[in-house]
């Protein structure tokens, strides 16, 4: 069962990644070019998922959407990890008031959903892919900090760290040689789960019009456009949502599968 989870997750994630990479070089049709007389075609050939209100191939737009989602995911998770992990490690290793301060600040940011942050940024700079990435990245920092901190605390209590400290290894050395390698798998799991959250967040933001602007396709704004044709071409609303669900499911399953794989003693539910 657990193996099935991990494998399904891997397959789904691979599908998304491959689609995104392919889309950088090639899509079956131009995802932005309006085509006369081809509006709202039902799925068939050569438009396997049909066309939208401008005659543009939906499959090609979905592929470009995968590109955007991957970019947003990588950058926001990257930012969150690069900032959150060192902070969490610092809190776990130093303890005391440093720990308190980091955790309190982290809690404040945690209470801030990415959406509200994104709205604030959009109100000042206008919604774009960049504001979405920054908002999601910043909002994801606390999760990474917490995981890193919890992992650091565990490692700090272990025998060989105590030995290393008594033999005079610097805090930085301990961090590099003992903490980091041991919490890396946990960070990996968090990255996968965080990626799933980033995808959902980006989709919601672009649905609301706060991320990548039209006419560039994202799965979220494709759903917004599809809503206009709900009575006339309902299938259009199916594909982008399905893509989001499958991508998120993939990253979630991958994360859960990795977690179970790394430590079967860990319970499924906290």
């Amino acid at each position, binding site marked *: 069962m657990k193996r099935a989870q991990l494998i399904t997750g891997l397959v789904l994630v691979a599908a998304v990644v491959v689609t995104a990479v392919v889309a950088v070089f090639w899509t079956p049709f131009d995802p932005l070019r309006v085509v*006369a007389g081809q509006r709202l075609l039902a799925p068939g050939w050569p438009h396997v998922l049909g066309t939208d209100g*401008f005659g543009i191939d939906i499959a090609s737009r979905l592929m470009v959407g995968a590109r955007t989602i991957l970019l947003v995911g990588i950058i926001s998770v990257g930012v969150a990890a690069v900032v959150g992990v060192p902070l969490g490690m610092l809190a776990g290793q130093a303890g005391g008031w440093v720990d308190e301060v980091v955790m309190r600040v982290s809690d404040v940011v945690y209470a801030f959903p990415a959406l509200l942050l994104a709205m604030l940024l959009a109100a000042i700079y206008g919604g774009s892919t960049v504001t979405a990435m920054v908002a999601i990245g910043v909002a994801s920092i606390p999760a990474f900090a917490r995981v890193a901190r919890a992992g650091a605390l565990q490692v700090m209590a272990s025998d060989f760290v105590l030995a290393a400290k008594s033999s005079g290894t610097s805090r930085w050395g301990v961090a590099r040689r003992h903490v980091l390698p041991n919490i890396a798998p946990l960070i990996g799991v968090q990255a996968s789960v965080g990626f799933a959250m980033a995808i959902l967040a980006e989709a919601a933001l672009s649905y609301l019009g706060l991320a990548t602007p039209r006419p560039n396709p994202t799965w979220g704004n494709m759903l917004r456009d599809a809503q206009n044709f709900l009575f006339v071409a309902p299938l259009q609303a199916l594909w982008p949502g399905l893509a989001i669900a499958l991508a998120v499911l993939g990253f979630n399953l991958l994360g859960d599968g990795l977690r179970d794989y790394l430590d079967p003693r860990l319970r499924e539910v906290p």
Partner: protein
Amino acid sequence: MTYAAASSRRSRSIPTKALAATVGLVLTLILAACTPAAAPTTSVAKRTLTVGATLEPASMDPWHNTAASIPQVLLYNVYETLVKVDSTGGIKPLLAQAWEVSPDRTTYTFHLNPAAKFASGAPVDAAAVVANINRLKTDAKITETLRAQLAVVAGAEATGTDQVQINLTRPSLMWLYDMSSTLGMILDPAFTGDLATASAGSGPYAVKTHTQGESVVLTNNTKYWGNPARFDEVTFRYSTDPNPQVASMLSGDLDVISNLQSPDALSQFADASQFTTTTGTTNGEVVLGLNHDNKALAKLEVRQALTMAINRRDLIDTVWNGQGTLIGSMAVPTDPWYEDLSGTNPYDPAKAKALLKDAGYAPNTLSLRLRVPVVPYAVKSAQYVASQLRDIGVKVTVEELDFTRWLDEVFTKGDYDMTIVAHVEARDLGKFANPKYYWHYNDPKFAQLYTAADEATSEEQGDELMKQATKYLADQAAAIWLFALPNLVITKSTITGVAQNATTLSFDLTTITSR
């Protein structure tokens, strides 16, 4: 284990009940707070009409705000004019029963209807009309459009209790039509309140409430001097997103959709027992405006190239479900001087590319910002136009702006290269004669043509000269006219009297009845 479990069981039993109790309390509190006291039932049912429209008026003051959504609600319904344009496009009496024009056509004498009075009870007499004209002449803050239209008026004087004489600086064929619109709205001179929120007109309705972002409610003017209003209350409900409007109409929440912004949804109103669909014309030209301050757009070849790059017939089919009319200049088929100029600078992408190159713009060297308001025809057309221009090697960045921001940044401050908006005023090609208007189009030859047409000694001559002026605009590609906006009115089958063609800015309530 059991003992601990038993004791924890006791303490664990509280959460559920506490939760239920809290939820119940919260529910009651909310209900109490949010349910206003029930209104006393009246013995006679209120006759109401709910109209769905698109752009919400920011204020109820049409003299200091330029948006067409304001006269849509107020013209003829709340504020009346000396003369009115009816559904056939002809000028008819309203506050003025009759009028004469002097032989040199610079003096107009209006005979006001002695019965006409404001909602306050004060008579609409010559003094009131003169006061209005003076008010506009001395107000430095009126809109640019009104200022330009008023420029031809030298002065007004009361030559009797109900007789007004208005002198023009020169003959103007357009002036009387302008007076049938926003320019001619007569405000009660005794009004001292805030024009943005309250009204003081002579029409069958008065402004009751304006809920920002949602609706405007008009209430019956019980002291109206003419045919009594047919409704006690009329609500205009606004939504830039056509889908909720369609849904509300289908579910019966709306009585009328003033102009359907989602022509794809027409088929959903096919049931004749429930809905009546009226298809007609408006005065609205959907104009892809070009900012003539932009270096590239100042060049004729560039403008011609852009016009030739867009397949406007297909744009109508793609964007507006084929419901618009192809036009080639700033005139619609109902204008007396209309001729079909849609063949000027016809669709020819190859020629467009060549023209661009001649103008000095190699492929992908020209970048333009297309900033549009978030209204359906503009957003969709923008996507279409961007794609077509990309095909001839012009990079277009599309930006969608909230209408308030559009008014501020594009219309007032001119911060744009291209934009798309529908100009719904009748006979409005004079806007191209005003260099201060947001296109910044400054062509003395056109201004000359237009003035000559306006000053013409007869309607026939005037129409002929207007034709020439219109053609000149088309040849100059002063803007790109995407299509003429159709009038797609959806009503419940019990509603009658909605005009087929929207000949004025007003959504005229005076002719609408409900069975």
